């Protein structure tokens, strides 16, 4: 028996509709009898099946638009599927609090906002605030408005907030590459903590360096289809070869 599965994706299809017509006016509705808009269907995921295991870090690679972000969103169960199933032992957390944060407010206030968005109570956040600030390494800048932060500093804060409660399954979409060496070391530590607690991490990235650093297995997504899953060395080599020949 292999390692236990934490997330099981089976034949997942995700389509986006991109509308080409404006919403019909009254005139068109009367003329055509009913409102109909032409749209193009973007098949972002076309039948992806994947198992995520305990104590594993899975790398997710692929060209821009290959469906990496879509697959990560789908794994949270929050993106409606056209067909297929997504099972999990708990709901994975996608490193995505960044969208809740307010650039005009200080880092400290943003810890409160991000924490509330993640489902913490105010009391829980207050008791963990110091720990979060320390982990982010932003003690000197924490009372400054977040818009004055560099992109790396912002990434540190996002990561620190999102992992304030060590998640069982963590999905990361291009979050680590912008940080400096110190931040990379800290984030690697967090990822190890999750793994040693029998959790799983999925790391969507374009930085092959990160794959080598963190991943036990790599999945290569190409135009909405999984092209290869396996040993990091082999899959990355095949991926790089395909991009070079393009």
């Amino acid at each position, binding site marked *: 028996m292999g390692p*236990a*599965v934490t*997330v099981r994706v089976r034949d997942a299809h995700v389509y986006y509709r991109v509308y080409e017509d404006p919403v019909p006016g009254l005139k068109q509705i009367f003329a055509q009898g009913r409102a109909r808009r032409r749209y193009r269907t973007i098949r972002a995921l076309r039948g992806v099946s994947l198992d995520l295991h305990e104590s594993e870090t899975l790398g997710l690679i692929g060209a821009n638009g290959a469906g990496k972000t879509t697959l990560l969103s789908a*794994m949270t169960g929050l993106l409606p599927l056209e067909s297929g199933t997504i099972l999990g032992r708990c709901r994975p957390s996608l490193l995505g609090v960044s969208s*809740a944060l*307010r650039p005009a*407010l200080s880092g400290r206030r943003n810890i*409160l906002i991000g924490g*509330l968005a993640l489902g913490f109570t*105010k009391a829980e956040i207050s008791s963990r605030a110091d720990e979060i600030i320390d982990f982010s390494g932003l003690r000197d800048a924490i009372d400054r408005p977040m818009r004055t932060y560099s992109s790396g500093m912002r990434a540190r804060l996002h990561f620190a907030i999102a992992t304030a409660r060590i998640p069982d399954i963590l999905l990361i979409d291009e979050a680590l590459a912008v940080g400096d060496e110190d931040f990379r070391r800290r984030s690697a530590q967090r990822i190890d903590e999750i793994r040693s607690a029998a959790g799983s991490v999925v790391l969507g990235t374009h930085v092959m360096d990160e794959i080598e650093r963190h991943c036990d297995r790599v999945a290569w997504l190409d135009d909405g289809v999984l092209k290869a899953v396996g040993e990091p060395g082999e899959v990355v080599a095949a991926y790089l070869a395909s991009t070079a020949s393009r």
Partner: protein
Amino acid sequence: MSDRDQQLHDLTRPPSSASYLQEAWNRREFAILVPAQDLRAQNMGTVLGQLWHIANPALLVGVYFLIFGVVIDTSRGVENFLGFLIVGVVLFHLTQRVVQDAAVCISRNLGLIRSVQFPRILLPAATLNGQTAAFVPALVLAMVAVVATGERPSMRWLALPAVLAAQFLFNFGAALLVARIGASLSDLQQLLPHLFRLLFYASGVIFSVEAFVTSPGWRRAFALNPIYDVITCARWCLVGEPADGWVVAGLLAWCIALPLIGFVVFHRSEQRLGA
């Protein structure tokens, strides 16, 4: 399939309605504290800063008074026109702000919706709470103005909290409905200002419907407009304008029915929001 695999459950299945409300309640701090932070951020970098929360409604009332109280006289049939106007403008503005903000509360938080699982009802609730909190200074201003224009506190004032609570409930229902529609129809944003301009005149904000509309049948039709009902009841409390049973019944019906309808409509398509 091993035993351990059987612990897996379907992540795409929506939570049941009962646990949904429970979860929303457990997370209520989100809908209270986040809009509070937003209100702080709103006027940062302006000279008056947080004073704008009171200066804005004061200017709003000032402009209407200048035009309709001084330049064009529509004060026919109203004893205390300034008090009448202020109550109308402030309450109308509250509903307008809640509804217009609710129309974009889903699209503005798409990133959050796509990355974190939480009861989406918290987003329109946060909008409602934020705008209601921003309305408190305007309400205080209205009360001060009403007293300054010669009204004396009476027993009728005791009914005001009930009227405001009814408006809050109505606003909640409207926010849910509009948030749902606005999520799939972004045109709503363009449409709403016109709808509210229409409602503005249909609610007798700047003139007395009692004095201008003489047919009792038509006056009864006005009672179908929830904002007219709110404003009329509040004026009955504060500036002694008349309010009949139709208006009270209309307000009651709206503030009970709309939150229920709004919840059902919003919750039913919860899983598809943000797709």
